[in-house]
């Protein structure tokens, strides 16, 4: 295999080559010092690029604060699904209590029916209200 044919394989990482391509490259590089030097240079480049992932640039002043403020505004909308489920259950419980109390108050404020008013004895509460209170 000529240098010209192998050259496109030299920049590739091992996992990017088929087994056949890897074999061709290895055999050629073993016998060609120029391509071996090229392959070594690409290998060194690859290692240095990997190291780049650990280098960090310093963002402009205020970037972190900006992010913290932005997520502070949104944070309450998002939590763990378990927390969301618990919040949902609590909300449902509160809603149930509120509706129950409203219904009870409505029942208490309704005027007694005509038959009950006819039976009304002065000094005693109307039957509907008395019943509701007893409950």
């Amino acid at each position, binding site marked *: 295999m000529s240098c010209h044919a192998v050259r*496109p394989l030299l*920049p*590739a990482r091992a996992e*990017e080559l088929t087994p056949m391509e890897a074999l061709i490259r290895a055999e050629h590089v073993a016998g060609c010092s120029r391509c071996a*030097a090229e392959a070594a*240079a*690409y290998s*060194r*480049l*690859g*290692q*240095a*690029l*990997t*190291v*780049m*992932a*650990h*280098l*960090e*640039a*310093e*963002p*402009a002043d205020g*970037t*972190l604060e*900006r*992010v*913290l403020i*932005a*997520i502070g505004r*949104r*944070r309450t*909308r*998002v*939590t*763990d*699904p*378990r*927390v*969301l489920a618990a919040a949902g259950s609590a909300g449902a419980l509160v809603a149930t209590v509120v509706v129950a109390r409203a219904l009870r108050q409505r029942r208490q404020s309704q005027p007694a029916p005509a038959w009950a008013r006819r039976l009304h004895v002065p000094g005693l509460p109307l039957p509907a209200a008395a019943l509701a209170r007893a409950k």
Partner: protein
Amino acid sequence: MEVDRELVEAAQAGDRWALEELVRRTHRGVYTCALRLVGNPDDAADVTQDVYLRVVRKLGGFRHEASFATWLNRVTTNVAMSTLKRRTRRFTVEGAAVPADTRDPAPEPAERAEAVALARRLERLVAELPEGQRQVLVLRDVYGQSTEEVANAMGLTPGAVKVRLFRARERLKAELEAAEGGQVVALSGRRRATGRRS
């Protein structure tokens, strides 16, 4: 960008301090990745903010199948690519994206020092690559994403990613050798021939 699992879990459970600590520990890495992809500091800062807004929305769904850093890099990639698609570039001065003050958060043992020094020199050369080549190279070779992941993020075919990657590596190696003064003669002709392609 190392993050404890306990910290992530606390943030997932709604612990405000944990979430803010997570941001404090990772924001430089997110900003740097964004800067390498979008090419200018203002857009990188916007991307960084959008990344964390997305993190807050999606953190509950993170299942620790990959490391948090890997997940965060994917989020950063997606936000950066969306930003690039939405915006017309404000300026395209080559080299403007160089994170000139990169620092290595890990301790620097002697055997690592040379690789770190080389990586710092590469930072500028990478920033000078054509945008398409730079993005592919950064995602694949710096952040270790698979060819398929890069293709998905950039809306390219895997074949197109491989072509850009090949050109980027070839050009970068030539530029590096030129900068270091080695093998310049052998490579300069090829660099001139391939240097304007993207």
